[in-house]
């Protein structure tokens, strides 16, 4: 029951906040913060309640009959993987509110959509029934449109529509795969646990259906070449939404790839692993190189998200323990760091400079030193410097990739190039943004320091990234046992295919 509270609280908040008249924006943002904090608290309680000894099974399960006509149940539960993502979602939800603290325009509607989106995200991570999972997955689509189209900036309606249509097409492709699973299992059920344990999919079926599911979910994970919605969407979105989109929503796709595509169709996963590996390294290198040439600060971060999601995909493609743990860690890590970067660029820096063009920034290191060094820390974390969570995650992924014999050496070379390119764009862009001089505006007047809300938000995200970076067992201890069933299935599948 505990875990389900996250969904219930979010949707309740969406309704309540939507009803309160928009002029009471102080009340609304207060309630929104309370809501975010309580979802975070609930997910932390789930973490505390998690029984490591039974890490391979789902806990906290609730099972209610729902639509027997299509074999769908209302079944939710958590394992280590879902708990880590629940905590991430709660954390980003709280910080999103903090970085939107000054919002007044249609505040009630904003938070109604915001928490409707978050409720859908929580729901996906909790669902143990594929139909239910899909319902939540689609529920999270429409609020995104309104958030971006109403409160966004730039080409917001275009970006919002593009994002929604990509998400929808992705979910439609995934739906096709889910229906195939329903009939292919011969059991006429959507129950994820039952399908994992006793679903008997023929190798041919797996090889055909796996790419459908993986691409379907992968679109939302920013998989090349279907990633184009991500930078435009993230850039046009208001800060809280960019944080959610990059931090959490992209993880929905990766979660679907891992839980559904790999979890249910291990033989298909083994068969397609090299292809996925190639796509993943293209993601990494392509995202990083494009980020290197962007002049809009927010686009830099947008493409860096695509690049970092490549590491998640690469981890998934390794299909071994180290790699999958790395992918899960990277989901969490990029969720935290990506959200932090978007918050800094989209809200903290932008609200002061009123520009996102790198060329317009003048001598920021002296005019906003606190913000500057925060960003440097965040950038280093994103780059994968030891001591931050990004390092641990990427290291796991790369070791996992080494251990995967079926990867060609070129995949590793590409991944190496990707790491270098990440270093390059991070350092170059930090330099351009904060240490560069602009000829256009040569004022040296200092900007206002960070507000309390901003300090709390940045501090929270940065410290989490550091804590995980210094002591990764906080997460790996729950991730490893929970990934074990998937790995067992993969091991069996590996023997069968080869």
């Amino acid at each position: 029951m505990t875990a389900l509270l996250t969904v219930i609280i979010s949707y309740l908040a969406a309704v309540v906040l939507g009803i309160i008249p928009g002029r009471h924006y102080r009340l609304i943002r207060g309630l929104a913060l309370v809501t975010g904090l309580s979802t975070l608290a609930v997910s932390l309680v789930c973490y505390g309640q998690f029984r490591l000894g039974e890490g391979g099974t789902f806990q906290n399960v609730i099972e209610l009959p729902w639509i027997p006509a299509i074999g769908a149940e209302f079944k939710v539960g958590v394992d280590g993987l879902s708990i880590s993502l629940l905590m991430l979602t709660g954390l980003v939800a709280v910080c999103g509110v903090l970085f939107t603290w000054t919002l007044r325009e249609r505040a009630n509607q904003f938070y109604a959509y915001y928490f409707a989106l978050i409720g859908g995200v929580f729901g996906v991570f909790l669902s143990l029934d594929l139909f239910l999972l899909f319902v939540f997955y689609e529920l999270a689509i429409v609020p995104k449109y309104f958030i971006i189209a109403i409160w966004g900036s730039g080409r917001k309606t275009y970006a919002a529509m593009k994002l929604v249509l990509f998400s929808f097409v992705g979910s439609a492709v995934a739906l096709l795969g889910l229906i195939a699973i329903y009939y292919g299992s011969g059991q006429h059920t959507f129950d994820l646990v039952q399908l994992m344990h006793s679903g008997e999919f023929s190798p041919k079926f797996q090889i055909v259906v796996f790419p459908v599911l993986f691409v379907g979910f992968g679109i939302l994970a920013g998989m090349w070449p279907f990633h184009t919605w991500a930078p435009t969407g993230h850039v046009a979105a208001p800060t809280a939404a960019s944080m959610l989109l990059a931090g959490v929503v992209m993880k929905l796709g990766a979660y679907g790839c891992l839980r559904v595509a790999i979890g249910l169709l291990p033989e298909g996963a083994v068969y397609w692993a090299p292809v996925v590996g190639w796509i993943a390294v293209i993601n990494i290198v392509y995202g990083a190189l494009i980020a290197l040439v962007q002049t809009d600060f927010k686009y830099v971060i947008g493409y860096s998200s695509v690049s970092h999601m490549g590491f998640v995909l690469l981890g998934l493609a390794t299909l071994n323990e180290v790699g999958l743990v790395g992918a899960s860690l990277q989901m969490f890590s990029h969720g935290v760091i990506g959200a932090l970067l978007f918050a800094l660029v989209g809200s903290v820096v932008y609200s002061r400079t009123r520009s996102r063009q790198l060329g317009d920034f003048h001598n920021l290191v002296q005019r906003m030193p606190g913000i500057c060094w925060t960003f440097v820390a965040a950038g280093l974390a994103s780059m994968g410097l030891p001591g931050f969570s990004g390092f641990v995650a990427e290291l796991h992924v790369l070791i996992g990739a080494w251990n995967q014999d079926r990867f060609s050496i070129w995949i590793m070379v590409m991944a190496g190039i990707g790491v270098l390119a990440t270093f390059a764009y991070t350092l170059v862009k930090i330099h351009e943004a904060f240490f560069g001089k602009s000829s256009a505006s040569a004022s040296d007047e200092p900007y206002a320091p960070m507000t309390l809300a901003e300090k709390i938000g940045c501090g929270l995200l940065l410290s989490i990234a550091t804590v995980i970076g210094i002591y990764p067992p906080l997460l790996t201890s729950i991730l490893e046992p929970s990934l074990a069933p998937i790995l067992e299935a993969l091991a069996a599948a590996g023997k069968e295919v080869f």
Partner: protein
Amino acid sequence: MDYTQLLLVTWPDLIVVLGVFAALSVDYTRYKNSPIEIRSDKVAMITSLSLLLALAGVVWQLILGEGSPGVPAGIWEGQIVLTPLTLGFKALVFALALFILQFARSQVPNQHVSEYFGLILLSTLGMGFLITTQNLLMLFISIELISISLYGLTAFQNSQRFSVEAGIKYFAIGGVSSAFLLFGISYLYGATNALAFDAIVAALNNGAVPSGYLWIGSAFLLVGLGFKIAAVPFHLWAPDVYQCAPVPVAAWIATGSKIASFFVLVQLFGPVLQISVHRNTLIIGIVLISLLSMALGNIGALRQTCVKRLLAYSSIAHAGYILIGFIAASREGNVSVLFYSVVYAAATLGAFAIIGILSHRLGREALIKDFNGCWKKNPGLSLLFMIFILSLAGIPPLSGFFGKFYLFMAAIGSRPEIAGWSDGFYWLVAVALLMSAVSLFYYIMVLKAFLVSNESPSPSPIKLSKVEGTGLVILALLVLGLGILPMVLVDFINYGFSYP
């Protein structure tokens, strides 16, 4: 002939007929010289009351149910058959008509008030008969009753050229479709020597049926019904009629008449598709119709600026989706068709009603941009509109989502094995899903006007009458409730089908 039986079967319908007469006579005697508002109030009250009584009667028959002396199972070779399923859907159509009457009350197009409401009631009667009949002759007569009333209603704004034009267009195309229908009926009769559906099925099961006649009969019947559900290529009337007819009439054509047509399609073709020797050819034909409807409806809707016309194209597309469930030619498929026709009708009715309410004072066709910034003055209506439109777009947890999902599940479930992608109906569902994505685009464009735009709309907030408000909220709850707990309706339809 036993007339008590007839009376027992049709007394709810008789109440409706009495209501029509009462409305006409009161309107033309007592309130002859009163202003239109008063007349429409009185007439709407009388007609609503009679319809409410009739609805209560149908529900009463439904509750009494099988075997009770007051409710004969059927009369005269399936002319009228009262099963839980038929009674349930008849009640549903009556209830929808009741909604339509409430929305029509404040939007009477001209001084012919009682005729307007009378025609709506007559078409309702026709739909009730169409749903309860299992006989080809009665089927034809009911369809004519519906159609002729609707032709008149479409052309009701006789001061406006376009309304009349649409009425004539509807009439001409509808007349042709009736000819197809009658022709098909005559061949089917010739082939099977039967008019009642069960007798036709029995004849088909015996196998001694001239194949050519059967083929022509089924194909023509399908074409005739295709006109009624506005499936491509028989859809040409729909955009003009939806756009130019008075809004409540357009809503009525899009909902009541659709439900009744799909119901009879399932009743007649459900069994035929399962056993006919032409099964495969017919299915290929329906697949083509479905593909064309989805493609043309959705792509056509992309370019529309007039909301009603957009909904017309979307209704063509929805006919395409619904036919996917029909193609399954299975019990599950038929259940999904009926389920979707209901949730589609609820959402469409709601959307039309809101457009009618908001655009009534414009005095012209409502364009999408007329609704810009609607959330500022009418937040409640905008929210309700979002619910209806998102249900049409198939977004969970609204019922349109489960409806579509169920249609797709049924279609794939009829041939689930994957040997290649051309096997089964995976490819058809894939097309449908792609088309849903297209439809999401234009639905969101409409919602964008309502909810995103920051322009200030000129009209002041619209005060809903209590009845209208309640009606809309009920519809929205229905749309939401059937999405969260679809089993309520699915179980009922399933139960209805298992009825002997």
